[in-house]
């Protein structure tokens, strides 16, 4: 609701305030205020204060939260198109990934959320995800057999871990440290900054850089809120989102380098397994896409992109 001409927008997310993606959202708030000449004010609630990523998306649909930042993986249960990002080895390299996210394909997927009450504004880079484990290093997919691996709350993330031989267990991010420590799961998978900043390395001493997926984060706005904004406010919000996206890529690159150095310094054993066995194990996931032709088409277009 408005008071004295300014509109407060509540943005909730699950990361700690030290995380580079949080800093990008702070920047987003500053830019939105600037571009809207002070009519929009973004209030950030970090650290799952207002719920996990899945719960926050529901609150956008309900209309009590204005915005949130979630992993594209969690979006899949709400908007099927996002499932394409959970396909392993989808991108050839970092440049291919950046090009796809900036392209027509990227914005098509962001738009797809509209009919589900959650409109995407911009992608934030989230690097590549790899396995980290408590007791057993992962050299080949065979090492995953019999291990419980925490996955994001997404069907394709679960299918991927199963295809590699692991046993997938969806658990909210904020509960993961305890789950690892208590042995509810034997390992998890994430990008270097998240592995480092969550301090999961205090429990997991092996990080196997198989880089199976590169699932971006998405900044979402509730259509309840979007529909009430004036045209210039929408433009201001979109512009601020794009600028924060550019800013975030710089932050991310340096955060990744720093996280890898710090992980090595605290004694995490970093493994660099060959990727061919992993890629071969997940091949059936692409063959199984016949059931979801929309995602299959998207993945073909992405693979075909130069």
């Amino acid at each position, binding site marked *: 609701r408005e008071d004295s001409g300014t509109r407060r927008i509540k943005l909730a997310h699950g990361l700690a305030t030290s995380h580079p993606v949080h800093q990008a959202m702070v920047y987003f708030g500053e830019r939105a205020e600037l571009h809207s000449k002070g009519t929009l004010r973004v209030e950030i609630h970090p650290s799952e204060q207002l719920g996990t990523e899945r719960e926050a998306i529901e609150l956008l*649909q309900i209309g009590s939260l204005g915005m949130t930042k979630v992993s594209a993986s969690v979006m899949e249960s*709400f908007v099927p198109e996002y499932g394409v990002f959970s396909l392993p080895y989808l991108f050839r390299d970092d440049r291919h990934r950046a090009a796809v996210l900036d392209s027509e394909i990227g914005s098509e997927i962001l738009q797809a959320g509209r009919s589900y009450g959650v409109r995407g504004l911009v992608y934030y880079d989230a690097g590549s995800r790899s396995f980290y484990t408590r007791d057993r290093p992962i050299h080949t997919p065979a090492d995953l057999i019999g291990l419980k691996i925490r996955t*994001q709350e997404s069907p394709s993330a679960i299918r991927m871990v199963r295809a590699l031989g692991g*046993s997938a*267990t*969806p658990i909210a991010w904020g509960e993961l440290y305890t789950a690892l420590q208590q042995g509810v799961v034997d390992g998890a998978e994430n990008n270097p900054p998240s592995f480092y900043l969550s301090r999961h390395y205090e429990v997991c001493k092996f990080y196997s850089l198989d880089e199976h997926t590169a699932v971006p984060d998405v900044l979402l706005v509730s259509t309840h809120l979007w529909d009430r904004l004036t045209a210039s406010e929408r433009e201001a919000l979109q512009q601020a989102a794009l600028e924060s996206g550019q800013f975030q890529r710089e932050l991310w690159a340096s955060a990744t380098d720093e996280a890898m150095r710090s992980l090595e310094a605290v004694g995490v054993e970093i493994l660099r397994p060959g990727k061919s066995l992993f890629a071969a194990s997940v091949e059936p996931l692409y063959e199984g896409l016949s059931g979801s032709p929309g995602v299959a088409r998207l993945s073909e277009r992405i693979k075909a992109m130069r």
Partner: protein
Amino acid sequence: MCQALRRRLDRILESILVILMSGMVLNVLWQITTRYLLGDPSSVTEEIARFGLIWLGMLGASYGFGRKVHLSVGLVDEFLDSRIAKDHPLRIGLELVSLGCVGIFAALILVVGGSNLVSLSSEFNQVSAALGVPLGAVYSVLPISGAIVLFYSGLQAIEISGRWRAWGGEG
């Protein structure tokens, strides 16, 4: 008639609670078995246990309203205890206010809010990650238990107003 219906509902809920509670124990024992004996930990037991707890908690709570087991503070009641009779209209009024609050809570948050939530999840086709069950089905325990609470509260209101009439007749 109402009492017969009430006993019927009590029995049904008790059976469901027995099934849910023993189901949750068996589910977790199965989780241990798959991990150690079959060497292939199950991916779904965690989600079953979590959803089971939501159902057990909400259904058990609604059954608890029938048995008036929920914790309360009730300073006014304690104050009146030694001063006026249990059947004094003031005490009866207090009980009705409390019952009214329970009814409002059940009707608004559980039934209306819960149904909104169920229809929203169904409209957007949300399914859980591991089991693939519709989240609307998981959330449907909210309006169901709300309706049960309303039923028990209605019966208690009838009972209390009976006492009110009895008091009026004597006085």
